């Protein structure tokens, strides 16, 4: 069948017949993840009467919402072919910078702005080392992960900063609700919807896919690939800064040791959601489903009184299983 026979203007997938569209939907990673999450929900609602209560659902959502913002940045960076190990410490650094400024009399909103700007600058610095000096993302962000953590500890002497005098309107972004819905979740949903749209539909973010899929072909298509990688690296750190501020508002404190090991969770979520470590593929929606899955599993294990030590083992196994299944599916497709 040649393209000439395709009726113009019809919806995507129609030319394979209506069954084809359904089959394509079923083949999509997101569908599989949703089914798994639903199965977990059903199983857990039998296993624990507490699971399906409003409080538990709200707590689970709160737990993944802020991390979800970091997942968005990481997914975009992974698509462009990069990776960032420093997300946890940069998030903590945002808290520490904003907290210290606030304790020294700076208005909390201005302090937050400065902290986010600082994180953005860190991202730009990493982007510089990757695109201009030519180092690998892995190494650069590993170094920054350690440096940022060091800065956190240096700034606070290793102890959490209690920010008891934060004005209530600032705490509102982390602790308040509009109606029954926590503000944190509203922010999260807005970030996800906006970036999902941008990534799927805008020319700027399309270039992220081109660059990650085949950097040389992208350069041979007139795309300034270094600029693209610089921007995705910077964006990821900026979103970490933003997440750090929300955490600060939520906890009412700045914790220098916050986010240790966060990078693993975030990368795992993105990869379970379909992002490829070699770049070129991934969706925000899928990555968020990955985050939800990991979070539901953690919460379920906690409710079932499974030891914390087991939780890590199970999370790791889920990652391995997801990636293995995907590997086989993509081999069958290819």
């Amino acid at each position, binding site marked *: 069948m040649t393209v000439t026979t395709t009726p113009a203007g019809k919806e*995507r997938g129609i030319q394979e017949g209506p069954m084809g569209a359904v089959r394509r939907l079923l083949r999509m990673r997101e569908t599989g993840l949703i089914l798994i999450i639903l199965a977990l929900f059903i199983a857990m609602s039998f296993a624990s009467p507490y699971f399906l209560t409003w409080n538990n659902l709200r707590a689970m959502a709160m737990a993944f919402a802020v991390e979800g913002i970091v997942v968005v940045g990481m997914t975009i960076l992974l698509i462009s072919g990069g990776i960032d190990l420093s997300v946890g410490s940069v998030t903590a650094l945002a808290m520490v910078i904003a907290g210290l400024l606030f304790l020294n009399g700076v208005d909390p909103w201005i302090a937050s702005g400065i902290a986010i700007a600082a994180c953005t600058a860190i991202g730009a610095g990493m982007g510089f080392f990757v695109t201009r000096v030519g180092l690998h993302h892995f190494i650069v962000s590993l170094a920054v992960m350690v440096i940022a953590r060091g800065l956190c500890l240096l700034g606070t002497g290793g102890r959490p900063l209690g920010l008891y005098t934060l004005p209530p309107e600032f705490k509102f972004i982390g602790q308040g609700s509009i109606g029954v819905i926590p503000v944190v979740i509203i922010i999260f949903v807005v970030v996800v919807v906006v970036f999902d749209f941008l990534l799927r539909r805008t020319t700027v973010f399309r270039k992220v896919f081109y660059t990650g899929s085949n950097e040389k072909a992208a350069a041979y298509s007139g795309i300034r690939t270094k600029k693209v990688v610089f921007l995705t690296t910077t964006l990821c750190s900026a979103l970490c800064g933003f997440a750090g501020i929300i955490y600060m508002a939520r906890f009412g404190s700045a914790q220098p040791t916050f986010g240790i090991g966060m990078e693993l969770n975030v990368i795992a979520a993105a990869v379970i959601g379909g992002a490829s470590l070699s770049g070129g593929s991934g969706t925000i929606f899928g990555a968020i489903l990955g985050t939800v899955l990991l979070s539901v599993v953690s919460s379920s294990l906690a409710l079932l009184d499974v030891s914390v030590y087991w939780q890590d083992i199970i999370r790791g196994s889920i990652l391995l299983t997801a990636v293995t299944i995907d590997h086989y599916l993509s081999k069958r497709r290819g």
Partner: protein
Amino acid sequence: MPAPYEAARAPISIECKADGMSGDAGNDPILKITDLTKSFGPVKALRGVDFELRRGEIHAIAGENGAGKSTLMNIIDGIHRPDAGTILLDGKPVNITSPAMAQQLGIGFVHQEIALCPDVSVAENIFMSGTNTTRSMLMDYTTLERKAGEILGQLGDIDPSVLVRTLSISQQQLVEIAKALTLDCRVLILDEPTAALTEREAQILFGIMRNLAARGISIIYISHRMVEIFDNCDRVTVLRDGQYITTRNVAETTPGEVVSAMVGRVIDNLYPPKQGEAERSGEIILDIRNLSERSRFRDISFQLRRGEILGLAGLIGAGRSEIVRGICKLEGEVTGEVSLRGRKLELAHYGDSIGEGIVYLSEDRKGDGLFLDMSIAANVSALSVEQVASGAGIIDERREKQQAESLGAQLNLKCAHVGQPVSALSGGNQQKVAIAKMLSVNPKVIFLDEPTRGVDVGAKAEIHRSLRNLARDGVGIVVISSELPELIGVCDRVLVVREGSISGEVAGDEMTEDRIMYLASIGEERAGVMRAEQA
């Protein structure tokens, strides 16, 4: 020294006995394949294929992409297992389960894609399978390099101690062939070995093939190039759509017959007609003056007229690709003037060049031409996504899809739908996507670097026809090709590049392979001197 190195020595002593190809090739078969069937899921790759390879013959396998050549070879090499059918090696049925087993049985396979370790020396690459089986735990590098040097000596000038990374693609191809020669093989499979070789290297390879055949080694030779098949092979077997079509003695058939058997219809004219008389004095579209780059080329000047297809010939490494990439600002520090329709251009990077409508089709479509895991539509719009987007930068998926569909139709692209990933397409259709990508920006000048490499005969003719149509519509076309019959068949005029400068220009009746090769390897100045001396 253990056995593998001894085997390596064998092919070296056969330098003198050239051209023993046809003589005593007519005896019992070393390999006989009957009724071979293989399916991949719903796709029937082979449907009852027969094949017979005689001792000491060079046997070509011809067929379009997807005809089943690779599947057949992969079964002989043990990569795939057949669903049904028998393979007799030396009259005995064999069940080849792995490439390692194929090697033990004396079957060597030089793949089209280079599979060498780039950060390891040439010598170590050549003896990779040998080093696996030696009993000693230590590497004897001196012996290794000496042995490698002996084998390479007959192939070309390659230092066995350098890293493979530093070699050109054609040199790497020769290393692959050297690697196969070290195995004591009775059957040697060569899958398009000349795709990356220069004419001269190819001739050396053909000499080696004939020597091997004279020593009783049977060679299966896969190529798209009819000239090579008819100059060097004894018999040719044609496959089409997974079916066996025919086996003929090369001496008793013609290239036209073989091509017809491959495509299943008569292709009366492989190349489209050339430009008309009126087009010969069309306006100058592109004017290049004194273009130089520090080390790669110097003082390049030429003009491209409306309606003509200009060819760039030359040996690999002469600087053809570098010149056109320099014009497009893809690489190099280039000085000189580029004018488009009489207007001098100031280009800073390739993006500017695309903006002016000057685009470049890369020679390596998988490496740097296409985004294999992305959809056809996304590939086609890659040069300018802005074109299918609103002013605010929001992509209009319908417009993107329509763009891919209409350009695909123009090039006769065969696909299920434009949402398919490019990796699902055949080589010829992938190349059409790469060309559609160029056309998406309504280019004024297109540079095509090896536009039909690895493309089957049918798609090749379609691409050539599309190029001629574009030239008619006023698009300036410059074609780089290592395949001289293609340049001669398609181009109205050919510039020959030698060692970074233009050594001559041929057009009309002057366009012959001899003349172009002469300019490419010796050059006009030397040629003039030689003529003067003769006089």
